[in-house]
């Protein structure tokens, strides 16, 4: 089974205090820690495990600026033998459909039985996988938390509300968006990164992909972010201040009063 996994480099929202830059055109980009989108690590791990069981290959593809090389190498160090970078100024400002359009061209440059994405990324859209499937005219399943290969088709589990699992059979080639918890992504150490440091990663631009530059990017986007803002909060929480001892003492009083200490 030959598998393509789409990975996005994002500001790590668990590591950063995200704030809005003056004017609201962007978030403050100074001192941001970037990482591979959490969901995508699970997608890469799943691809590697499938190939360990069934044979085949794993290719990791990322779309962005030249910084994505770090992300692609990190995922290759997990055990994906090939990487692919899609970089072109004309891609900047693409909406979800633009991103999916560019990824579609990358899928069609190769020959894959399975395309994996993360369930969602930093802007919480959860859209690229489903759009990519529709553009390719492949079947699709989102929020996948189990994959078993069964001949030409897959038996997959989808996570639904309340943590129940919906079992489906899906034909290949197909696109699946992977949910966290499906596996335990392996640890990547410095040694692993060093091992793939000199592997050549092809960089494709719009021309090399055969993508019409006018069909993607900011100008073609039907959906645009106008600005970032911090909503005028309601009352919000009453914030306790003081030394650790003082704060703890206030909390004890509060919890006692509310019946939280039994």
């Amino acid at each position, binding site marked *: 089974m030959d598998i393509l996994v789409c990975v996005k480099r994002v500001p790590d929202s668990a590591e950063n*205090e995200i704030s809005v830059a003056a004017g609201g055109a962007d978030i403050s980009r100074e001192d941001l820690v970037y990482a591979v989108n959490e969901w995508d690590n699970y997608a890469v791990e799943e691809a590697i495990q499938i190939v360990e069981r069934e044979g085949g290959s794993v290719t990791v593809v990322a779309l962005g600026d030249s910084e994505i090389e770090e992300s692609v190498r990190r995922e290759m160090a997990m055990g994906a033998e090939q990487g692919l970078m899609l970089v072109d100024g004309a891609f900047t400002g693409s909406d979800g459909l633009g991103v999916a359009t560019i990824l579609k061209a990358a899928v069609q440059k190769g020959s894959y039985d399975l395309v994996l994405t993360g369930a969602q990324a930093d802007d919480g859209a959860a859209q690229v996988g489903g759009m990519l499937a529709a553009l390719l005219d492949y079947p699709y399943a989102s929020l996948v938390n189990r994959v078993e290969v069964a001949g030409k088709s897959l038996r997959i589990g989808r996570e639904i509300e309340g*943590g129940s699992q919906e079992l489906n059979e899906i034909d290949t080639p197909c696109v699946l968006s992977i949910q966290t918890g499906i596996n335990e992504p392996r640890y990547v150490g410095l040694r692993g990164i060093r091992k793939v440091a000199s592997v050549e990663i092809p960089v494709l631009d719009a021309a090399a992909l055969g993508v019409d530059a006018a069909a993607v990017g900011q100008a073609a986007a039907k959906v645009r972010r106008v600005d970032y*803002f911090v909503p005028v*909060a309601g009352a919000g929480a009453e914030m306790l201040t003081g030394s650790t001892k003082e704060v*703890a*003492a206030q909390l004890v009083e*509060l919890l006692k009063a509310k019946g939280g200490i039994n």
Partner: protein
Amino acid sequence: MATQVFALIPHAGGKADDAALELLNAAQTLFPGCAPTALVLGSGPSLGAVATEVAAAFPEVWSFNQESLAYPNAELIRPLLTKVLPAGAVVMLSHSTLGIDLGPGLSVKLGAAYLPDVVGVDGVEGSLVKVVRQEFAGQVSAHVQADASKGLVISFRPGSFAPATASAAGTVVDKSAEAAGLTARRRFLEVVQAEAGDVDITREDVLVSVGRGIGEQDNLSLVDELAEAMGATVCCSRPIVDAKWLDKGRQVGTSGQTVKPKIYLALGISGAFQHLGGLKGSPFIVAVNKNPKAPIFQAAQVGVVADLMELLPELTEQIQKAK
């Protein structure tokens, strides 16, 4: 903008989901004066009950009653809607696991713009639909606009719109024949119910909930000790379960348990909507987080900006002394 607005109604067990009236409110807020059409898909006599219920709120209901639609498989619903909806339609979905499955591909097939997980609306100007979304796990909000001149698929976060008051004498149009002979390359097999855990956190009055901010598995002992001192039960956010540090049965949220405690202590939890979606009954929430901008402080009554590693031992010690 002369738009035809459609809302896909989630339902189960012969009853419409709360999302039905929320979608109606969203439709009326975004397109004042519009006459939205409800789309009700399913199988058997219970679908008739849903259609009748929904017709008390929507002026028109399109009912698709087919065996193949007994379970909502997005891979069947997408081609059906692509076939029956008029060009340029606005399709409203709930940002549920079905909406996530259906919406992105539907927008592509309809040639429409897609606005996912919308939490508020900001008006319509010509063919531009302006909405509010959240990014970075709710740390910042964004105004987003979509060019809906070729149609729009828009999904709303459950609970972000109040239910509209139902006051229509709508007509139910039977469109079942349109849904005959649907096939898909993804076939639904069955639903496996979530397993019950070692404790039932849904019945506890005092919950100490731990999130990724605890850092390492070994640090969980600090949380256990605090919970023990309080006489409370430990639950958690999703990353703790994903890492297999705690049982799935202890996860609070839309894909975990729905809890109704009196007191909820949120430790190192950012406050993603999927987590808060599992908290019902307006508990007294106390949040501890090192990030003063964490969205959990919007939901909490009392907040502390602190490092758990420092605060937890001190708090446990003081509680033990106070008892």
